[in-house]
């Protein structure tokens, strides 16, 4: 593997945990049993490797945009497939609504020049937060994603994970402490 390939491979691999958190945050609870976020991310990264020549020529915002677009397409394709397969049981999943959400997320991560001055650090910190979430245990991660990325209340988090409110509060607090510990460390 030459140097260019290893550089692009490192850039792609760095996005793995970030894309996985994004995919999990997009995932409505009722689809969680039918869709696997890691499969979607794996598929997306495979496409990225196949397009390594193209990606090597892109700057960071364009690179992120490419990966997010690929993930979005894969995610929406998967949602459509599930809708077809389970057309009676799944209930209405509006593809356009999901697409809108995806687009908005992309705006946040890619449009680096659209917000006030704090945006300088914010984008990088946002990416680090999404990355750090993948280091949490499964249940803590689910709780944190429900609470902080999907805006659920403590009660809704508890119901979604089928645990008591006190257990959910414990999960959330331990998850947050772990995230803060990671994010407070200077980036290597």
């Amino acid at each position, binding site marked *: 593997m030459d140097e260019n390939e290893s550089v692009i491979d490192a850039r792609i691999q760095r996005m793995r945990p970030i894309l996985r958190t994004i995919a999990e*945050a997009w995932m409505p609870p009722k689809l969680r049993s039918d869709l696997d976020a890691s499969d979607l991310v794996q598929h997306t990264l495979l496409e990225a490797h196949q397009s390594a020549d193209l990606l090597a020529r892109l700057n960071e*915002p364009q690179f992120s945009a490419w990966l997010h677009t690929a993930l979005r397409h894969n995610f929406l394709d998967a949602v459509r497939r599930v809708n077809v397969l389970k057309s009676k049981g799944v209930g209405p999943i509006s593809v356009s*609504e999901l697409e809108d959400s995806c687009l908005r997320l992309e705006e946040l991560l890619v449009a*680096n*020049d*659209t917000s006030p001055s704090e945006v300088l650090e914010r984008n990088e910190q946002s990416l680090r937060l999404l990355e750090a979430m993948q280091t949490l245990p499964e249940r803590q991660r689910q709780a944190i994603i429900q609470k902080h990325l999907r805006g659920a209340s*403590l009660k809704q988090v508890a119901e979604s994970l089928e645990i008591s409110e006190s257990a959910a509060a*414990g999960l959330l*607090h331990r998850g947050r402490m772990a995230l803060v510990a990671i994010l407070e460390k200077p980036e290597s």
Partner: protein
Amino acid sequence: MNRRNDDVGERDGWDSDSNSEWLIRCEQAAEHGSRTEICNDNEAMASEHRRCYEWVEALASPIRHALTEPTSPPMIPEYEDLVEIGRGGMGIVYRGLHRETHRVDAIKVLRPDRFGQHSRSRSNASSLLRQEAKLAARVAHESILPVYQVGEVDGCTWFSMQLVEGVSLHDRMKEGPLSPELASDIMERVARAVDAVHRQGILHGDIKPHNILLEGQSRRPWITDFGVAELANDTSSRLGIAGTPAYMAPELIQGIFPGLPSDGKPIERTIATDIYSLGATLWALLAGQSPCEAFGVGPVAMQRIAEGSQPWLPAKVVSIPEPLLRICKKCTALDPKDRYASAAEMADALSDWLNRPRWNRHFPRLRFLLQVMVAPSLLVSGVITWWLRQSNGAEAWVWASLVSPYVPLFLAFGLSRGHAAADVRAKRELWSMWIGHMLGSLSCLISLRLLCHPNADRATAMAYPILAGLSSAVFIAKSGNFWASYRWIGLAWAILAILFSLAPESNAIGFGVAAAITCIWIARGDRAFREHSSATTT
């Protein structure tokens, strides 16, 4: 119920029976923004909970916000049929029908999802939105959206303004760089609007392609979003360093990087910081990409901009005309004193470029005629006049030879006028100057002949210094609005006028040679003749 390992927190004691109820109260209090009162029974742990909650929430809220589906429009009594058409950091913009007037307006409403129902930040944001409406309403200009009404609904401030159907320049840039003519035309009008804003004592603070709407077919630009605008010298301003890093002046970026030297000067927004943003916006339109895209978005690139060491080179290969690049560079000079003193000055510079003479476009053969017809005829005329005078030729032939080169010169100008409508200021100025030169020359020659009567040779000898002097005046006058080298040509003709007086016998040849050289120099040097090859590829 299935409890897994990470559901219980025996290891850190946070989930023990005694703490579980307390933890729920802390969590619920954090959700409702009233943490202190409820969680003060264990201040250290409460403080840790609060710190972690706020840390994660601060980073997660923009991401959550990005994932949020469009919110349902508010119920504003004055308006109906509200449809969301855009959202920014502080507000959501709806299109709505005014019930009384049946006019379709744009209504900007404070974002309820970003500012909690009872939070202090909502009242701050409300006052900022009111301030935005107030400042925008103070400026009456054809490119500033008029504000109609301000109100409040469900604790959220809103204001209505004229609805413009069009795209932002940011969206337009996605199709590629704008043509230099279109970009200059838009930015000239934007700069005049910003000047009107400044004359009201207001600093916009966030000029960028996202905040300039291009109205449909008319291509009329509209400046929007006075969200971070403030009154100049407003000491009570709560905005601090606001704006968009990619379009932010170096002296403001220095405020983001406290390590950078700021010469001890207070960091504040001024007219010069708005002019920097205007220049960066013009550059972005010409390059088809924002400075962020070209230079990168990290702190290193920002630091280079703050230090003035970032060259303004687009990442893509684009062609930017040299004069426009100079305007961009003047606007984005590191030292605010080196920038245009006002937005109107920048608008004037753009206007001058838009009105520049473009002979290659209007009359492609003029350059050819100057080199092939006018220059040789001037040379031949000089030689023939000299020969006629030396050989005591008939006076009528001497005068005919002396005046003859003016015929192709003014024929060429006459034809050029026919090829282009006189709608370009530069063209009108040029035409007036040469008509003046011709009339002045003819009247001087006639006067000379009458004054020197019956000595015709003396009259022709005196004619050349006068023609040279008049040429000097015309070229010096042209140097102000046209090619700067005309001043050197004018100076040379002034010297020649004196020399011709010293050597009256040979001044006809001297005049012919000098005039021919001048024609070729102009045809080869004047940018108006080289327009198509003047673009700088960067």
